[in-house]
């Protein structure tokens, strides 16, 4: 079971109160986590990554085990602690705007 922490606005959109727990089949990577997340919460499609290019939206960052993994290739395995559910996968909105 993978734990995902969403920004507040996306928690509201997905109608969840806290961390999200999702099953991921195969390798646990950014891509497989986001695929599973969007499959379970279709309303999140397009809000984290572009629906066509699959590029991360520029004002969002991905963190795992206190490391910014935003610029890692999407098929790079995430740390074991995330894959085992010990640590969450963070999707964080950049501090910008007003």
């Amino acid at each position, binding site marked *: 079971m993978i734990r995902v922490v969403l920004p507040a*606005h996306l928690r509201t*959109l997905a109608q969840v109160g806290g961390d999200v727990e999702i099953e991921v089949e195969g390798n646990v990577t950014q891509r497989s986590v986001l695929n599973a997340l969007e499959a379970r919460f279709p309303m999140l499609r397009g809000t984290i990554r572009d629906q066509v290019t699959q590029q991360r939206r520029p*004002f*969002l960052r991905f963190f795992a085990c206190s490391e910014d993994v935003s610029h890692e290739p999407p098929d790079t395995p995430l740390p074991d602690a995330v894959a085992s559910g010990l640590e969450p996968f963070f999707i964080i909105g950049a501090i910008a705007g007003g």
Partner: protein
Amino acid sequence: MSKVRLLVGTRKGAFILSSDGKREKWDINGPHFAGWEMYHLKGSPAEPNRLYASQSSGWFGQLIQRSSDGGRTWEPVGNKFVYDGVPGTHQWYDGTPHPWEFKRVWHLEPSLTDPDTVYAGVEDAALFRSTDGGQTWQELAGLRGHGTGPRWQPGAGGLCLHTILIDPTNHQRMFIAISAAGAFRTDDAGKTWRPINRGLKSQYIPDPNAEVGHCVHRISLHRSRPSVLFMQKHWDVMRSDDSGDSWQEVSGNLPTDFGFPIEVHAHEPETVYVVPIKSDSEHFPPDGKLRVYRSRTGGNEWEPLTKGLPQSNCYVNVLRDATAVDSLDKCGIYFGTTGGQVYASADAGDNWTAVARDLPAVLSVEVQTLP
């Protein structure tokens, strides 16, 4: 007794204001989608409790929301806006080619007859249509593809398609407007389009007969006489009596003819409203006085409407989609400001009341007249 429902989009959420036909007391419901930019909300004329809303954010992109109960509850529907084929390029501010990139939905225009059909005007400028209640969107690519698209250039607010008018007597005919490309018309339900900008003069365009490049801010028409169009251009208030084939200036005695919205009275096709703004570099009312101007002669002769509006130290703006008229008798007219006020007049503009004072900056106002 009739009821009136205002759909107000702001920089930080949507609000729904309701009143009875007297339009004296108002209930404010919201914010819906708190913290999100709500560029536009509009109800289906065919099924008034069916609402569509454009929800966007610099962080999370574009969402479309749909309500089937007049805005009490909402559900996100499709938000995949993909340009048809290879998108190509338009001009950037410096005149260099720039690839078409979807940014947001500025305006949603439901079909006059089918609640599941809705049009979306987007930035970078294109027109999309959904026929399944907003679940999926297809571009009407004949607009961008008719030939002048590579010459379109963004206005200061972006290359946005902000106005969509459906001819109520001929649904094959639609008008749209783009900043800063101009106005366009289709006579075959969106398959093919042509520019309708003859007679527009824009001092920043060297060619006085330029087919495109005009910064049209808004177009409006009266449903009983859809061949007559009124336009607020960047500068100049214009009128066309031939469905946009030619335009004449009707700015007349306005204190300034810069502005954003333009609206036509619900029952008087020759009564038109604008909100003059000082200039394109000073986006506030002249002399700090918020005045709506009304012409009862289809333009040229304008009178200021001031009762109930601030007449000193007022420096708000009224954006292009932030005015609306209801269809009651007397005609109600409404507008929202970048200062968060929503003003209403239940007597065609003679007297005004602030029905909301402290909302976030208002981006759009629509009104529904309900049984």
